[in-house]
């Protein structure tokens, strides 16, 4: 659905994206992650035919975004960052206007505008002036606009930025539903959201792709996948020495908390030393009040990939 080959965009003085290549298959929901300034918006703007790349190629549904830009735009629903809308129009009026620009007219226009208002729960604000709407509603108007021409592909630049937790949940459910019929590329900073909605993740940093895989695989291939926490009554130094001998344990740190020692273990990606740890504790007669495993999250992957070199 999306094919990006060696895409590069240079502005005067700096390179926003360097030699980017990735593909998005039909039916996927792909999360596009990266710190601010990594080149996410630039990539999305190129894909949406808003601006041309310096070099390289990108195509949507087989149409080149630059040389066949009109056809590419027909297949794409794009929601820019911060959802720019005309504040002086009414919701229905705006959607009618956008539909006409996308060559949807007459009875089909009424039908589609009605459908997207239904889908994005805009019925109760349909006669309000866009400028008076709350952020959450504006976001939904933007999404409704992107859906008007039932595009095969949706590109959403930070669809949940600035929303409250309830609205984020609504938008997330909406996106997950849309994913049944549309291919979606979305960028966001809310990583749990990506874990819940996306079938694949592309992480970019400083204009280059750091990783592209399913969220599970990314988490599993991390250098240190999560950690184990043990709270026991034992001398801190003894504990560290004993635990450090266990197979698969890479690092042990300890803190004392009102008489209890709290150990945090970093382990290899695929080993789980909890069983040995328990045996050790019972052998040595340590009193244990907590033994738990903290699973690595996409957030850890993200931090490691985008910050790893600097730390």
């Amino acid at each position, binding site marked *: 659905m999306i094919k990006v080959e060696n895409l590069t965009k240079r502005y*005067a003085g700096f390179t926003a994206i360097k030699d980017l290549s990735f593909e998005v298959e039909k039916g996927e929901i792909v999360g596009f992650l990266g710190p601010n300034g990594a080149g996410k918006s630039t990539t999305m703007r190129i894909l949406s035919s808003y601006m041309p790349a310096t070099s390289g190629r990108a195509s949507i549904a087989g149409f080149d975004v630059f040389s066949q830009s009109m056809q590419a735009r027909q297949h794409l629903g794009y929601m820019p960052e911060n959802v*720019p809308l005309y504040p002086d*129009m009414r919701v229905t009026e705006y959607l009618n206007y956008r539909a006409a620009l996308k060559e949807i007219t007459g009875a089909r226009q009424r039908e589609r505008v009605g459908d997207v208002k239904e889908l994005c729960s805009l019925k109760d604000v349909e006669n309000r002036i866009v400028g008076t709407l709350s952020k959450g509603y504006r976001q939904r108007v933007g999404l409704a606009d992107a859906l008007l021409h039932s595009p095969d592909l949706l590109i959403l630049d930070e669809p949940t930025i600035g929303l409250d937790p309830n609205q984020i949940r609504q938008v997330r459910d909406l996106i997950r539903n849309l994913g049944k019929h549309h291919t979606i590329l979305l960028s966001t900073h809310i990583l749990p959201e990506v874990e819940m909605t996306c079938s694949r993740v592309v992480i970019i940093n400083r204009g280059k792709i750091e990783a592209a895989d399913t969220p599970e695989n990314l988490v599993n291939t991390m250098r240190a996948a999560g950690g184990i926490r043990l709270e026991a009554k034992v001398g801190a130094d003894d504990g560290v020495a004993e635990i450090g001998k266990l197979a698969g344990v890479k690092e042990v740190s300890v803190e004392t908390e009102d008489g209890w020692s709290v150990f945090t273990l970093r382990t290899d990606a695929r080993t789980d030393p909890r069983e040995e740890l328990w045996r050790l504790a019972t052998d040595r007669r340590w009193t244990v009040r907590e033994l738990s495993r903290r699973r690595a999250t996409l957030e850890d992957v993200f931090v490691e990939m985008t910050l790893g070199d600097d730390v």
Partner: protein
Amino acid sequence: MTKFLTLLSREVKSYFYSPIAYVILCFFLGLTGLCFYSGVGFLAQGPTEHTVIQAFFDSIPFWIGFILIFPPITMRLFSEEFKMGTIETLMTAPVGDWQVVLSKFGGALVFYCVLWLPTLLYFVIFQQIARADAANATGAYLGSYLELWMAGMLFISVGCLASVLTQNQMVAAVISFCVITFFFLGTLLTFFKPNIAPELRMLVSYCSVLEHMGEFSKGVLDSRRFVFYGSGTALMLLLTHQVFQFRRWKA
């Protein structure tokens, strides 16, 4: 074509969404009313060879007001879209750059024509009351309104170019005001410096809207004027289109 009409109708409507249309309309009606009043007063002083339309258009307050209406009509056309970011939603819909440029130009031109409509009433009233056929020549009307329309086209295209250059509406207004004023003050140069080179004098008079108006209001249609306004407008719109693309592409 439907897309162009959709864009055009939004441009025209957007004038009336904001108070700006009503402010300009009131200002302009007040100004033209005053000019008409003083023009008729001038004709009533005694026998004259001027038509009512010459007396109306050939007054300094009229020309000053005329220069002043273009910046507020055109300043927001592109600047506002860039400032609000709506240019991104607009240009990712399947619309072409030329469609957008021409619809914005066309929208401003339609509003400009609406501005002039009420003034036709003055001359209907004049005809009804004065019954002075000699002072009311048809050619003078046609010529004057044609000239106003063509000068409007040129100045609106200047305004489009100024607006696409910046996201700040005030900056756009000042740029277009300066350029438009130049077209008017150009002719004054020949008064202040009577001994300038004849080539320069010809150029200045070729560009001088004020001089053209004198001819048109007598009913003289000179093809050079059509070429001047037509090519000037085309050039300004072409530049607008180029700058528009450039700004989007480097953004």
